[in-house]
């Protein structure tokens, strides 16, 4: 089988992307609809949290994707730095806005989920705070891409920012845990992956997670294709200007 690096070639990437995308889009749609309907209509309430437990079908998958999106951007940035494949740099750029949306969903659902527990619409719970910081890192990354004109320079600088940002994001996570220990707020958001989620919640949750993953992949592949086409258009227009 040919090496994965073949798809660093934009044309090959586009061809593969076109073939794979329908599966991803349909898969995402089906999983999301099935998973959310199952979770919303056909699962019981939680003993402690009542019907708010239904929010996990949105909160957990989006939170997972918010982190995984950044991690994917990190890997793509490293590939750009080491092997200079433009597709990789563009994939990182493409993933960022999707990561932002995932982070926003995680933040909103997390805050709303906590409201019955905390009595306020927002609390500086370690998990929510860390996601808020992650949101700021995403914003900075996207802002830097937008601010730099030369695409290769932008790719270089944003990759380095992604690397440095990752280190500080991890550092911040621990700092936030340290910062929050003084507060005895009661249960932090529970029913996360580490806890023992009852089977009846577990399977619709898995389907929803699958739906979010597939949607993320579909969006990133599509958006990377768009970025590749933007690059090609600019190259063609530059050529036109030169020949004119």
């Amino acid at each position, binding site marked *: 089988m040919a090496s994965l690096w073949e798809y660093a070639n934009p044309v090959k990437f586009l061809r593969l992307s076109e073939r794979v995308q329908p599966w991803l889009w349909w898969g995402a749609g089906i999983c999301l609809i099935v998973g959310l309907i199952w979770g919303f209509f056909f699962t019981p309430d939680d003993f402690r949290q009542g019907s708010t437990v239904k929010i996990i079908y949105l909160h957990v998958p989006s939170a997972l994707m918010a982190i995984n999106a950044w991690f994917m951007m990190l890997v793509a940035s490293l590939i750009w730095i080491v092997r200079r494949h433009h597709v990789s740099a563009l994939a990182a750029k493409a993933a960022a806005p999707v990561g932002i949306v995932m982070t926003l969903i995680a933040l909103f659902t997390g805050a709303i989920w906590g409201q019955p527990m905390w009595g306020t619409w927002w609390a500086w719970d370690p998990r929510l705070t860390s996601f808020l910081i992650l949101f*700021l890192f995403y914003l*900075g990354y996207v802002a830097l891409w937008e601010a730099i004109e030369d695409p290769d320079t932008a790719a270089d*600088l944003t990759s380095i920012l992604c690397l440095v940002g990752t280190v500080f994001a991890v*550092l911040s996570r621990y700092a936030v845990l340290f*910062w929050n220990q003084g507060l005895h707020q009661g249960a932090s958001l529970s029913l996360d992956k580490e806890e023992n989620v009852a089977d009846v919640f577990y399977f619709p949750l898995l389907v929803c997670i699958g739906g979010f993953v597939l949607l993320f992949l579909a969006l990133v592949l599509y958006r990377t294709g768009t970025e590749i086409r933007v690059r090609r258009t600019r190259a063609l227009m530059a050529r036109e200007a030169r020949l004119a």
Partner: protein
Amino acid sequence: MRALFFRDLALALRAGGGFGLGLAFFLIVVVLVPFSVGPQSALLTQIAPGVLWLGALLACLLSLDRLLAVDWEDGALDLLATSPLPLEGIVAVKAAAHWVTTGLPLVLAAPVLGVLLNLAPSGYGVLVLSLALGTPALSMIGAFGAALTVGIKRGGLLLSLLVLPLYVPTLIFGAEAARRAAQGLDSATPLLLLAGVTLAVLAAMPFAAGLVLRVNLR
């Protein structure tokens, strides 16, 4: 490298070099806080360590774009890049000069401003210590941010957006240390964590910043 350091120092201290602006900003922010939260002494005592840390942090941020932009614009940076000095060293030296002209004055001014905010007596020592340990990290992280935005017109706001999230660990540990001391508690742990972050930043960030400058000077 020493020559570069003293040159930057002299440039900052000269008229129009921006020295004292950071200090003035620090003062103004501290003065504005009671206007925004009310003058009750008890409340001010409670928030004093955090406000002083935040004020110092924001004042550091102010002068960051001068760190590299001036030399970038008149071509001095290109010249420096061709010298035998490594870019990492150049950035480190500039960050050091920034700290001496911005961070250090803030550290020294903090106790005086602490009086304005009714800081608890037990808090003064650790406040100064935490700022002394933390502000070098702020300068170095700021230098990295300055390198990223050096070629961008009006990059100041973007610089803040990029750098402020990076300041979070230092701010958390520094302010926590100051807060604990002000409450009469032991502040060793956050101080150690703060020192750890600063050491790691001073060791690693010059390389990241050098990498970034190399890209921008291409």
